[in-house]
């Protein structure tokens, strides 16, 4: 997985025009956008990403780009590689062969891709405004988030904190943002430890 903050407009560009305005951080965040290149994540991960609707996505198309060498372009979950790598590798090999056979038979890429697994790697651009990013971090940096999207959101948070340290100093999972855990009976029970981890 590779995450890179490609573009954003610094908050100072706005604030320098508004010396007397009292703009809350929340209000300011809504006017800022952050564009990331996300590379080598699984389709399973990108499916979780696109559930965040106040965002923009430009994702590599499986209609127009053939998947070559599937075996070297999959994301393998650590739990699988630790316990059942043969089952996983076998399925990837079968999917790879089936995909290639369909393409060779003249089936359009948009149909051949139906046999590709969720583990298939994808690349995309994603843009979120600052408020949406805070919500994304609130949900996806949480210990309960799936490991890949949590790894992704932790890295995105690290990079926006470099770009805008003050604005994102309170960012992190919702327990850090709210001062309480909103997960109810699903709480991890480790709020103190989590808050400490995300403290700047």
């Amino acid at each position, binding site marked *: 997985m590779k995450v890179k903050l490609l573009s954003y407009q610094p908050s100072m560009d706005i604030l320098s025009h508004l010396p007397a305005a009292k703009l809350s951080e929340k209000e300011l965040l*809504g006017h800022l956008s952050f*564009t990331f290149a996300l*590379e080598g994540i699984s389709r399973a991960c990108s499916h979780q990403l696109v559930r965040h609707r106040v965002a923009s996505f*430009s994702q590599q*198309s499986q209609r*127009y780009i053939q998947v070559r060498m599937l075996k070297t372009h999959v994301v393998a979950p650590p739990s699988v590689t630790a316990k059942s790598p043969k089952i996983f590798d076998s399925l990837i090999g079968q999917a790879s062969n089936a995909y290639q056979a369909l393409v060779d038979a003249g089936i359009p890429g948009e149909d051949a891709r139906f046999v590709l697994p969720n583990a298939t790697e994808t690349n995309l*651009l994603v843009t979120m405004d600052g408020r949406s990013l805070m919500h994304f971090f609130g949900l996806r940096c949480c210990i309960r988030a799936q490991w890949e999207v949590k790894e992704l959101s932790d890295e995105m948070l690290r990079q926006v904190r470099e770009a805008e340290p003050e604005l994102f100093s309170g960012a992190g999972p919702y327990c850090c943002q709210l001062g309480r855990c909103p997960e109810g009976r699903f709480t991890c029970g480790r709020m103190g430890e989590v808050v400490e981890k995300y403290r700047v």
Partner: protein
Amino acid sequence: MRLTLIARTPNPEAMIAAAMLTTTSGVKPSTIYERLQANPEKVNDIVSRLEVQHGSILEHNRLVWILEADEQLVLDTLLKNKFFTFTRLGSGRWLMSANLRAILEYSEEHGGDLGDSLLDSICTVVPNVNCFAERRRA
């Protein structure tokens, strides 16, 4: 009504071109963007061929203005396009932001003083996108 562009994401046309190529190329988006930043002619060539209905490629940016207008215009704009963001700065003074897709769609569908002023404000920032907008309005 008075509109003043005060901030924007850098090099928006390079990002539009990168978004276009990301969907149809096997090259990684960060590599595409880096190459395009160093090649403005290529960016011009790609963006000047903009002919798509997939507006998401126009969303990887944000422009921020100070708008001097009455509440009626702000309400009217929000009712017409939910992708504009407003913050009240004072009486008749607003901080307004949107991405290029929202700007183009608003200008094309509703025009008016605000639509025209929005297009005027982006003509030097994204010249190829502006030409695209003019073509669509013609």
